[in-house]
C-alpha cells in the first residue's frame, strides 16, 4: 500500500538565515496518526509548510499518496494535504462560516451543488452545522478550530496536518478536538508540544530537533524516555506519568 506521506532528505534555510530543516526524512503509512513533537524553533511549522508546497522545496523529495510534490502537481497536492494552521483566525478569512468552508471546494472548481453538499458534509463532521451563517470572528476558540478543520475536510484530503491544534483551547475545547480527531478516519500528522494530547491521539510519535528527526517510535515509549524528552526541551505536565495512563483512562 502506498504510504500517505514520504519525506526524503528535505533541507531548508530561509534567505540569509540558518538552516531550519536538515536532511529530514519521514514516512507516514496510510491511516496512521502520528505526533510530530519538538520544542519551539525546532522547525515543525516550516516542515508543515513544505508538505503542501507553500514553502518551495530547496532539496530533497516529498511524495503525497504516491504523487511527487512538483510545480505541475501543486493544485492536487494542496487538495490532498489538508493544512490546519496554528492560529484559526489566519485561516478563517471569509465573511461567514459557510463561505469559508466553501472556499476550498470553490477553488477546486466543483459544481455549485457539489460545493454545497461538501460544505454540509464537512460542517456535520465537525458538528458545526448550526454555525454555518455565523461570522468567523464571533466564534469561540474551540468553534473556530472546528470550522477551520471543516474548511479543510471539505476538500476531501488524504492527509490532515494540524499545527499546534490545542494552542489557545480551554480544557473542554481540547477534549472536543481530541474526540473529533479520533472520529476522523484520515491519516493525520499532529504537530504539537502538548505531550498528553499526543499520547491520547497518536500511537506513534516523532521528535524533531534542529530540523531533523531524532526519535521515532511508539508514543508511550517516547514519552517514558525522560532523558530524550529533556534533551529536546519537551516536558510532561507535573505529575503526569505516561506509563500509568491506560488508553481507557486517556479517552474516558
Amino acid at each position, binding site marked *: 500500500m502506498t504510504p500517505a506521506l514520504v519525506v526524503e532528505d528535505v533541507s531548508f534555510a530561509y534567505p540569509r538565515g540558518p538552516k531550519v530543516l536538515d536532511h529530514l526524512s519521514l514516512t507516514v503509512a496510510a491511516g496512521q496518526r502520528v505526533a510530530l513533537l519538538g520544542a519551539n524553533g525546532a522547525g515543525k511549522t516550516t516542515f508543515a*509548510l513544505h508538505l*503542501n508546497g*507553500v514553502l518551495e522545496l530547496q532539496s530533497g523529495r516529498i511524495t503525497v499518496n504516491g504523487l511527487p510534490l512538483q510545480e505541475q502537481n501543486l*493544485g492536487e497536492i*494542496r*487538495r490532498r*494535504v489538508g*493544512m490546519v*494552521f496554528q*492560529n484559526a*483566525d*489566519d*485561516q478563517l*478569512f*471569509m*465573511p*461567514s462560516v459557510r*463561505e469559508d468552508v*466553501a*472556499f*476550498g471546494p*470553490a*477553488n*477546486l472548481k466543483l459544481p*455549485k451543488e457539489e*460545493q*454545497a453538499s461538501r460544505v454540509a458534509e464537512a460542517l456535520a463532521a465537525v458538528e458545526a452545522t448550526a454555525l454555518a451563517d455565523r*461570522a*468567523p*470572528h*464571533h466564534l469561540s476558540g474551540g468553534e473556530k478550530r472546528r470550522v477551520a478543520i471543516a*474548511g*479543510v475536510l471539505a*476538500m476531501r484530503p488524504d492527509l490532515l496536518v494540524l499545527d499546534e491544534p490545542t494552542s489557545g483551547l480551554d480544557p473542554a475545547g481540547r477534549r472536543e478536538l481530541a474526540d473529533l480527531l479520533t472520529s476522523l478516519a484520515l491519516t493525520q500528522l499532529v504537530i504539537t508540544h502538548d505531550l498528553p494530547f499526543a499520547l491520547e491521539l497518536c500511537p506513534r510519535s516523532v521528535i524533531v530537533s534542529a530540523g531533523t528527526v531524532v526519535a521515532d517510535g511508539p508514543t508511550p515509549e517516547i514519552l517514558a524516555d525522560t532523558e530524550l524528552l529533556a534533551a529536546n526541551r519537551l516536558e510532561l505536565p507535573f505529575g503526569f506519568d505516561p506509563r500509568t495512563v491506560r488508553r481507557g483512562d486517556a479517552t474516558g
Partner: protein
Amino acid sequence: MAGAHRHLLVHGQSPIHTMAPEAKIAATFLFVVGVAVTPREAVWAFVVDGVVVAVLMAVAGYRFGQAVARFAAVLPFVAFAFLIPFVASGEQVDVLWFSVSREGLWATWNILAKALLGTGASLVLAGTTPIPEVVRGLGRLRVPALVVSIVAFMFRYLDLIVEEMARMRTAMVARAHDPRWLWQAKPLASAAGAMFVRSYERGERVHAAMLSRGFTGTMPQLEHRPASAAEWAAAMMVPMVSLAAAAAGFALT
C-alpha cells in the same frame, strides 16, 4: 470598542432587513446623491427627505434614543459648521444676541441637513445589513472583485487589529504610561509601527492559508440570491424621492 460595526445592526426581520443587499446599497447611494445635489434654499425638500429617512428608520426598528445616539456620531464632523456663521462675511443678521453672517447660516444649514440625512440613510443600511451581506451586495453591483476582497478582508480583520491595539494600550497603561503631551507620543508611534508589522505578518499567514486551500489568485464567486425586480423597484422608490425633491428644488428656487 472591539467589534463596533457588529453593534450597528438592529435586530429584526423588517422588509428592509430581508431585502437583497445590492438593492439597499444602490438605493442608499442614490438617495444620498439626491440629497447632496438638492439646493440648500429648498428647505421643504430636505423636510421631505427627512420624513423618508425617519419612516425608514422606524420600519428598520430603531428606537428613538438609539437613533439619536447614533446620529451623535456625526457631531465631531459637523462641529466646525457651527463656526461658519461667525467667521463668514457678507450681510449680518441678529440671531439671539449674536450678529452672524446670513450666508454663513445658510452654509451651516446646508452642511448639517445633508450630513444628517446622509447619516440617517447610512444608518438604515447599516442597521439592517450585516457586513458579509454588504460585501456580497458590492460584489453583485459589479464593484471590482479586488476591491470587494479588500473590503471583506478589512472587516474580517478589523476586530482583531482593534483588539490587539487595545491589548497593547492596556500593556502600556499597566506600566504606568499616561501620555498627556505630544512629546510623550513616542511609545504610541512605536506601537503603531509594531501593529503594522504584526498585520503584515498576519497577511502573510493568511495568504499561506489561502494557498493551502487551492487559492490561485481570484476569489471564488459564491452562491447568493440576486435581488428580484420587485426588490429593486421597492428600493428605488427611496432615491426617487430625494432625486425628485432635488429636481423640484432646482425648478422652484
